[in-house]
């Protein structure tokens, strides 16, 4: 039986999202598809699968990403879904622990990709918000106040960016001592 859940996670909350998906899997609901904020699950034995999320450098259909995903699948995991540049993997718990990263350097690379994404989105929101607001001040058309919305989102993205940078700073400090 399938079950659909609508839930919203910001791009910088991927840890929280992954934790939630693993809690669902532990209860016997394993992710089969994901679209924006629509998560579809199928019933499986509780705890049968472990879930990992990764933000790729390029779209999952890009040849480089396809090579990467194939490599991950050769290690016993399988891709269950993708959304924009995010991919969702699962691996049977019986086949051993499932991690995508085992050193600090590769964790930092993933955070850098998230930082890049948030920065791009943030700049786009600032431009579109700023443009519309300047129209409001120029012509006084109240519809241009819609520009406040992207500006608010860019503030949120900025807050997310700070959180990710904090995580990265901690890892960079660890890197002075460990691999």
């Amino acid at each position, binding site marked *: 039986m399938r079950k659909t859940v609508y839930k919203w996670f910001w791009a910088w909350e991927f840890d929280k999202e992954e934790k939630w998906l693993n809690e669902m899997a532990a209860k016997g609901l394993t992710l089969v598809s994901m679209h924006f904020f629509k998560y579809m699950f199928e019933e499986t034995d509780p705890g049968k699968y472990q879930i990992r999320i*990764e933000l790729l450098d390029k779209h999952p259909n890009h040849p480089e990403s396809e090579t*990467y995903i194939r*490599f991950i699948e050769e290690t016993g*995991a399988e891709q269950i879904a993708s959304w924009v540049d995010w991919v969702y993997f699962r691996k049977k718990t019986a086949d051993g622990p499932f991690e*995508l990263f*085992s*050193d600090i*350097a*590769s964790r930092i690379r993933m955070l850098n990709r998230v930082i890049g994404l948030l920065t791009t989105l943030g700049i786009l929101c600032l431009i579109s918000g700023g443009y519309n607001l300047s129209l409001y001040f120029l012509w006084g058309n109240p519809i241009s106040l819609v520009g406040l919305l992207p500006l608010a989102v860019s503030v949120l993205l900025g807050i997310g960016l700070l959180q990710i940078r904090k995580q990265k700073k901690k890892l960079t400090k660890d890197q002075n001592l460990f*691999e």
Partner: protein
Amino acid sequence: MAYQALTEAVYYILLSLTEPMHGYGIMQNVENLSGGRVRLAAGTLYGAISSLLEKGWITALSGEKDSRKKEYQITAEGRLVLLDEIARLTELLENGKKLFGGTDRA
């Protein structure tokens, strides 16, 4: 500096690839070699393999066409890097034993 220290992952990957092996084989081999201590994660392993291929320290073997799994093997250059690293690690270990009086916790 004559040469730089390798990461633990790269060292164990090179050591594994003295025999041809595919990605999952490397993960299992490293885990066995280290008595379960070192578990290479698939994404980290992929990054290391890509860099090692770029450096020319390992090479991808062109196996049978129908086999999906790609095998890798160490190159002559990779062997030299591994020899240097073993010399470096030996130095570290010998100095540790000499100056720290053995490796016992007590």
